[in-house]
């Protein structure tokens, strides 16, 4: 496939793994730099976008870009090991070559979010594509209202970006609430489902936008609850995941009704998704 500049968007750019760090059980934060001289360079990207990573010989799979262009040239991905490609990526050593294809998909309308309160709800590995939202708000703190982060995982060992929680909490007008389904001995935060935490925090819908990403079942129930709490469909954003093989609106796999997750999304407002969330579930 070719773009205006002639580059084929099914053709991955070559990169090197510059860092691979355990972040949780079976979850690694991978840092990727494109090889020197790679043409074209990885384009500027924005919160919400994703890219395909290739473990050559095994395959490629899509991952949310967990970094921001602003914070540096290393592309970061939080990768949970679940199958063949994610295992291949986990097994790469620092310095190994891999392929990168992107950025793909739409972005969070960060400009439209300015001067609003943001409620960010991340469940498990679903928090990965939300980190760029959090970083963008923290890096332009005066442009946004209150930032309330609700962060959940099945178990403390599955929480991602734990080493950043202090800096998130330390930012002005920023709150972080944590919950796990099942605690361990060291856990001193909320225990229960994300929906329990939402009920407890009881966020106000006034001048607020909610952004949710996590397992489908969590998105479904959290979204229903937010609606009950008075969030209008236009105030409820989700970033969705669907199996996909091109990320370019060609392979046909990721449709949700007439929407394509790869091209129309992965970021959607519930005003767009409407009843089709049912078919996504």
């Amino acid at each position: 496939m070719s773009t205006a500049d002639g580059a084929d968007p099914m053709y991955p750019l070559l990169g090197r793994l510059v860092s691979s760090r355990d972040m949780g059980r079976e979850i690694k934060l991978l840092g990727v730099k494109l090889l020197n001289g790679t043409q074209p360079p990885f384009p500027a990207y924005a919160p919400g976008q994703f890219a395909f990573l290739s473990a050559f010989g095994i395959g490629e799979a899509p991952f949310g870009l967990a970094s921001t262009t602003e914070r540096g040239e290393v592309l970061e991905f939080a990768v949970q090991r679940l199958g063949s490609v994610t295992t291949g990526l986990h097994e790469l050593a620092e310095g190994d070559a891999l392929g990168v294809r992107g950025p793909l998909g739409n972005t969070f309308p960060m400009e439209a979010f300015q001067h609003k309160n943001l409620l960010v709800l991340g469940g498990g590995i679903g928090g990965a594509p939300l980190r760029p939202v959090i970083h963008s708000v923290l890096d332009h703190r005066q442009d946004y209202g209150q930032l309330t982060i609700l962060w959940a995982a099945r178990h403390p060992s599955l929480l991602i970006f734990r080493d950043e929680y202090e800096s998130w909490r330390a930012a002005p007008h920023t709150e972080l609430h944590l919950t796990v389904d099942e605690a361990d001995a060291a856990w001193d935060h909320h225990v229960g489902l994300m929906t329990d935490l939402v009920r407890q925090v009881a966020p106000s819908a006034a001048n607020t936008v909610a952004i949710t990403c996590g397992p489908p079942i969590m998105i479904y129930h959290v979204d229903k609850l937010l609606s009950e709490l008075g969030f209008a469909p236009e105030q409820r954003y989700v970033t969705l995941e669907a199996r996909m093989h091109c990320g370019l609106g060609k392979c046909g796999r990721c449709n949700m009704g007439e929407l394509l997750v790869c091209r129309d999304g992965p970021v959607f407002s519930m005003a767009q998704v409407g009843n089709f969330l049912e078919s996504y579930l």
Partner: protein
Amino acid sequence: MKTLSRENLNLWLDGLAAQQSLIAPHLEAQGVFYRPVQRAQEIAWEADRPALSAKEFLFPPSERLLKVEKRGPDIRLEVSPSAAPQAIFGLRPCDARGIRVMDAAFLETPPIDSQYASRRENTLLLGLACRSMGASCFCTIMGLAPDDPRDMDVMFTDRGPTLAVQALTPRGEALLAGLPIVEEPGEVEPASRREVGGLPTAEAWKESFGDARWAKHGERCLSCRLCAYVCPTCRCYDVRDEALPSPPGEAHFERLRAWDSCTREGYRLTAGGHNPRAAAGSRLRNRLLCKFVYYPHQYGPAACTGCGRCLDACPVNLDLLEIGGALQEAAQ
């Protein structure tokens, strides 16, 4: 009308086959299929539309996207070479429309799919009008006709000793230049048409999403994917890496794309086990709503040409016309 004698047409086709790959309806043990032929004599003239569409010549069942060569820490990627020229003769209007429908997704909606584009640029569409509509054909419902020339480079109509010929694109014009074409009085007779039922509007298809009948159809559907593989417009694909034989110290792979279908059980299965379309009825519904609602929304044209092949192919007789007809009745 412009005509060409059968003798001259055959000579011309023989010449074409000598220069490039010539694909035409050909009688095989299992029926008539579009196949590469060496000479005009091998063409099955009398047949109805071939059993399979011409999709595979533009969008092959499996094709290499790139080759990967690993040598220690070094990796080399190689893209596939561009396609060789080919001409499809005897192409039926439904199959030409099938190609136009694929064009909408692969060429006309950015970004351009370079592999498809390379084949498409190098393919001549030489149509042959159907004499009449076959038993399961319903192209007329889809706005086509058995002798519809619109999607061709050149359209031929068989009149016995001579064929009417009409160029429809500059490429077609150029191709015919120099041929002993005769101007005859009169018009080409239209092909005979058959009354066929109707199908719901896109809106009615869309509203059928919650209809209980989808689950009923799902109880019958075998999720065998035949309907999608015989369909000239079903174009969903899978991408995967496969190992190739490699010299010592190196590892070679190819990245392939291969046909896939949304009626397959594991089509939407994600790592971790979540399957948003675990029910056969929801997958069948997706295939049909894609044809009439989703594909038009994303790319423009409806993704059905009325070729009727999925009606013929389905082992349990799930019939698009029947399913749609029942929905249409319910909608009225």
